[in-house]
């Protein structure tokens, strides 16, 4: 290939539709002409000047090869010699590419510097105690956050690229000697099945990986904190990091994961057990309370104690709406307020909550449109939806479904609905892991970290519900200050 370096650089620029951010620097070095090409926004200009251009300016040889440049001159920036096909992809990833006259290859330097935020505490996973670092949108930073917590040669990172146009980088991170490799193969097989133009967030992959993409229930776990991701890797899960998003995916997933908080592992086990019981109670309240309240009022008022019944009757007797419509009215009102407060600018949030909660709610009660118990029931149910934030969308939906069932079929209908729901969930498997494990099927050892949490010292085995190849987690008297760290 007898082509000048500058011509090749211009050709590349043309291929990039003459974009102004494609920078070309022609350099004359001895008898040879070189051209350095890079994309302005993606590269660290300082690094280019310091490590590449400055080093080249000191080079005095007249005849040289790319190999000589790579090994003797520019030893920084992980320089590598690549062929034509790979060059464009590297350019797009923020590499600087150096062409030489009459050489079809090019020397690529890692000068990547994406704009990105620094490591902060994620707003959705704040903790009272424990690490506060959260993932960012930069894959490299996220991987480094995991690597620094897992300095082990057994930690395997596999890189994939998904998206015809976005070419989004994805890292599968797992312990090679712990994970069930069938799970890894299954993940790769599922990801291979799709050819999408762009992946902007890990949620795109969620839909590729789920067995039932149309289900309202999550089948893939996620987390925003490296300590949680590391804990999951240690349990034998695979963590998927996606470039451009702070949400890491974890596979396999069991439903009960969402009842656990990272705080649980940095607090007293007894306290955690109580909190988890409250979370389960919260789940039941959020899903069933509105439906049960409607059913109680419409069909089963005899179940209520007399004093309670009298209070309810006194507050609801003059309402224009029946209990079913009343609760629906309040639920819709609440959802409108919630949606508005999420979308409104932050400085209006306070005003919305005052207008919504105080004025609308209070006025509706005083106007006799809704009853105080009805407002209380929906408010309680709405608050408890967020006791398990990762399940909030499913819970909100189920709350409405069970309100309808309670209003049409009463308590018996609610029981049937619950059976229907659980029968559906019992048939769920996420990558060979039963969705309701360790409760159903019952796995005795895993119950140590179920609702009632046991002390860390008793959890000697990795969870059996997650398929893994190495079951031992804790050995007594064999730690020796981490010398056996690879296990």
């Amino acid at each position, binding site marked *: 290939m007898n082509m000048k370096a500058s011509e090749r650089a211009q050709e590349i620029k043309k291929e990039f539709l003459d974009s102004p951010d494609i920078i070309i620097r022609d350099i004359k070095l001895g008898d040879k002409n070189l051209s350095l090409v890079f994309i302005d926004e993606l590269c660290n200009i300082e690094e280019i000047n310091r490590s590449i251009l400055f080093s080249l300016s000191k080079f005095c040889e007249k005849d040289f090869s790319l190999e000589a440049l790579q090994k003797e001159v520019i030893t920084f920036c992980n320089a590598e010699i690549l062929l034509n096909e790979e060059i464009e992809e590297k350019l797009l990833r923020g590499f600087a590419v150096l062409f030489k006259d009459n050489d079809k290859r090019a020397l690529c330097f890692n000068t990547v510097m994406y704009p990105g935020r620094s490591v902060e505490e994620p707003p959705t996973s704040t903790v009272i105690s424990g690490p506060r670092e959260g993932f960012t949108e930069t894959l490299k930073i996220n991987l480094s956050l995991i690597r620094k917590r897992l300095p082990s040669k057994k930690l395997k990172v596999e890189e994939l690229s998904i998206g015809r146009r976005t070419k989004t980088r994805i890292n599968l991170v797992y312990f090679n000697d712990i994970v069930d490799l069938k799970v890894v193969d299954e993940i790769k097989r599922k990801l291979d099945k799709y050819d999408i133009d762009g992946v902007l967030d890990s949620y795109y992959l969620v839909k590729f990986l789920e067995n039932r993409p149309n289900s309202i229930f999550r089948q893939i776990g996620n987390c925003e904190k490296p300590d949680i991701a590391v804990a999951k890797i240690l349990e034998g899960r695979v963590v998927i990091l996606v470039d451009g998003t702070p949400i890491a995916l974890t596979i396999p997933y069991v439903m009960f994961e969402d009842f656990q908080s990272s705080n649980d592992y940095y607090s007293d086990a007894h306290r955690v057990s109580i909190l988890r019981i409250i979370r389960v109670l919260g789940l039941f309240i959020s899903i069933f309370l509105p439906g049960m309240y409607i059913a109680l009022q419409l069909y089963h008022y005899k179940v209520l104690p007399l004093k309670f019944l009298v209070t309810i009757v006194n507050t609801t007797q003059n309402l224009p709406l029946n209990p079913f419509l009343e609760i629906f009215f309040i639920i819709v009102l609440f959802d409108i307020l919630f949606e508005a407060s999420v979308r409104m600018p932050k400085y209006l949030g306070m005003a919305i909550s005052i207008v919504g909660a105080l004025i609308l709610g209070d006025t509706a009660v005083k106007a006799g449109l809704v009853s105080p118990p009805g407002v209380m029931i929906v408010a309680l149910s709405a608050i408890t939806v967020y006791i398990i934030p990762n399940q909030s969308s499913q819970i909100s939906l189920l709350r409405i479904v069970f309100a309808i069932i309670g209003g049409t079929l009463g308590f018996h209908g609610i029981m049937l609905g619950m059976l229907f729901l659980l029968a559906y969930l*019992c048939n769920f498997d996420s990558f060979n892991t039963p969705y309701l494990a360790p409760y*159903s099927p019952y796995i005795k050892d895993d119950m140590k970290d179920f609702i009632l949490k046991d002390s860390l010292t008793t959890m000697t085995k990795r969870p059996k519900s997650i398929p893994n190849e190495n079951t031992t987690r804790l050995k007594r008297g064999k730690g020796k200050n981490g010398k056996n760290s690879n296990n």
Partner: protein
Amino acid sequence: MEKTVTTRQLIFILILSVVTLKVLFLPNVLATNIGRDGYIMLLFLLLVDFIVLLMLLYLMNKYKDMTFYDLLCTLLGKVGAKIIMFLLCLYFLTRCFTRFQTNFIYLNENLYTAFEWYIFTVPILICVLFCVRQGLKAFSRLNEVFMPVILFGFAVALVVGIFRADFSNALPMLENGISFIKSSSRYSVWFGDYLVLILFFGKVKMDKKFNLKLILSMLGLVFSVALFYAVFYFTYNYNTVCHINAISDIMQFLPSVSDIGSFDWILILIWDVALFLDLTINVIVVTSLFCQVFNINKHKEVVSLVALLIVVVISVLMNFNIYLSMTIFRDYIYIYNIIIQGALPLLLFILKKKKRRKKSEVLVAQ
């Protein structure tokens, strides 16, 4: 063959099968017909059933990797197996009917007047079909989810009853001797629960102490159910005949009822679930047996739907004349039940023993 059910799940399914009807309406039936010594009758029948369980367990252990159909083929040949499977299918269809009818009586007792029973059957049938479609593995898990709640309900009722019952009502014991045992076969409709086990041949992941766990839990259950009847009867004595729904009625003695409302409603709802699950497992058995007899591998849910529709139609017809339907069950169906519940397991047990003896004779001859 894939082992889809754990030992714990199997035990829970057997508990469901045994306990559901026996703590609802059977106490009233026994109180009406036998009275004070009904718990002896109950214990006797439960122990007879328990012997059936032991025979089935023996067969299950001997043919660990065989389905019940394969076992029948081995012992009786293919034609014999198909005939037996079909007879069993009919038997379980009658069980489906009794469960469905119990649902009807139970919900009629507790259902608000706003709904007609036959309107309510629609969601029940949809839900049963859905659960059947999820398969045996999902059902076993579903039952595992609810069983702790069901057992909790049973235990609460039992404990409340024990504290309230007047055990002096047990006396005089066996006032009229044990002549009532003669009529025990008439209650066969209420028993034969362990036959559900035939569905699980070759499908159970057997623990190390599988037999021990199963036998001990079933023995515990047998005595608990008999105790429940005793407690129930000793609580109400002669008035027991007026109390149809044992599990609900026994809870009326719970303290602070006025503060927390009618607590028995919680038990009613729990037993709602138990009845539903019991109906579902029987429909699963019918579907499985029928599909095996006629080699149906696809669209099994259609078989379940047809089975349920048959049950509903029979129920509609029988509800026109409750007295006649009861007579049919009391005077005719019970004979069929005895054959299937008692004679069939015994026959298989003997055949297996004979086969074993033959085998050892051949070995000796060689």
